[in-house]
């Protein structure tokens, strides 16, 4: 499943720049038939997170998002959300919970047919999260079986942790009903900095998804539904 997401992500990464180049060349200016395009604020919510809350043990979260079209190709975009995730392994047990915000822009690389307003987009985000980590229990790892291992269940809480990251996002947005959009996106993240709890690590960062011990990169995905509130036409 994870490999599929990664693969999809790479495919999208390759396709977006090429389609962007190809589309720009073919745009013609002396078209007599012009239809004004709608500009406005689009607000929505992520569907994958509530669904994971229902289906996945040890996860809960939600995300709301908005974007504002400020020129033909560019949109201001922002997401805010909250996530809680458990880490349950036989020798390590912890919970992370907190809120996050992401701001940035999307670039629409798709040249629409007349009257359509779909997007194949790429964008950049700056992500910020404040969260807490709770170390519930752990056992000391040893490769020797002579003495029994004991589980240390003295819970420790690390509060007020923060993390910053940069994010590359690619996706498609399609208008399925009037003003109602469905969107799928993939995110590649690179951690800029995070507060490490003393004698522990951030196993998960809300908004960033799980961390990797040997890498500053992370990945995520989302699919969402959003509604366009048109403000003016141009």
């Amino acid at each position, binding site marked *: 499943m994870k490999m599929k997401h990664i693969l999809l992500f790479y495919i999208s990464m390759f396709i977006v720049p090429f389609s962007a180049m190809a589309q720009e060349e073919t745009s013609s200016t002396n078209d007599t038939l012009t239809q004004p395009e709608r500009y406005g604020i689009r607000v929505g919510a992520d569907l994958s997170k509530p669904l994971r809350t229902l289906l996945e043990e040890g996860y809960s979260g939600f995300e709301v998002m908005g974007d504002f079209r400020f020129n033909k190709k560019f949109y201001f975009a922002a997401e805010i959300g909250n996530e809680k995730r458990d880490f349950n392994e036989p020798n390590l047990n912890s919970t992370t919970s907190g809120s996050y915000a992401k701001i940035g822009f999307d670039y629409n690389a798709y040249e629409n047919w007349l009257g359509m307003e779909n997007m194949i987009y790429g964008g950049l985000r700056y992500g910020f999260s404040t969260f807490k980590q709770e170390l519930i229990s752990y056992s000391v790892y*040893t490769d020797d079986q002579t003495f029994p291992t004991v589980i240390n269940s003295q819970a420790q809480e690390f509060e007020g942790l923060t993390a910053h990251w940069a994010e590359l996002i690619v996706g498609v947005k399609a208008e399925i009903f009037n003003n109602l959009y469905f969107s799928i996106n993939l995110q590649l993240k690179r951690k800029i900095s995070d507060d490490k709890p003393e004698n522990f*690590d951030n196993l998960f960062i809300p908004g960033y998804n799980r961390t990797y011990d040997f890498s500053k990169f992370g990945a995520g995905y989302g699919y969402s539904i959003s509604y366009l509130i048109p403000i003016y036409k141009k």
Partner: protein
Amino acid sequence: MFKKVILISILIVFTNSCTRDDICSQNTPNTPKLVISFRDIINPLQTKEVVGLEIETDYENSIIVIPETSSDSIAIPLQTSTDTTKFRFKRRVNDSIFNIDKIMFVAQRSEVYVNRACSYKTIYENLNATLESDGDNWILSLDILNNTVENENEAHITILH
């Protein structure tokens, strides 16, 4: 070209990081063992093999840690749940008799985070070793070289015999 290079490098970093996290690698240092070297009482600079050495824990239901061997250097585990660990160091005298010497190790433990797969390891500080005198000890002297046990790179204790 530039794009491709970036993408390939991202790919390498990204796919690399997926697999290494989930299992605790044998190469990751975890709870260190206590390393003991055996030396000659007459010439303490000279290592001296103990012939017919066997080590077991000094508790009810004792467990053999080192089965009978001849060696001049061994590594034994210390307890991760209490500060003291007791062992019986046995040296074969003849076919049916062992000379048994008891040693008690005491150290302050602290638990250090390793990573998500290995969780924590214990390191030991202020290590102390006491040899129980029984009138017929084959261990003649016990020197602590390094009272902090945080790796297995060199001997922590020398036993002279």
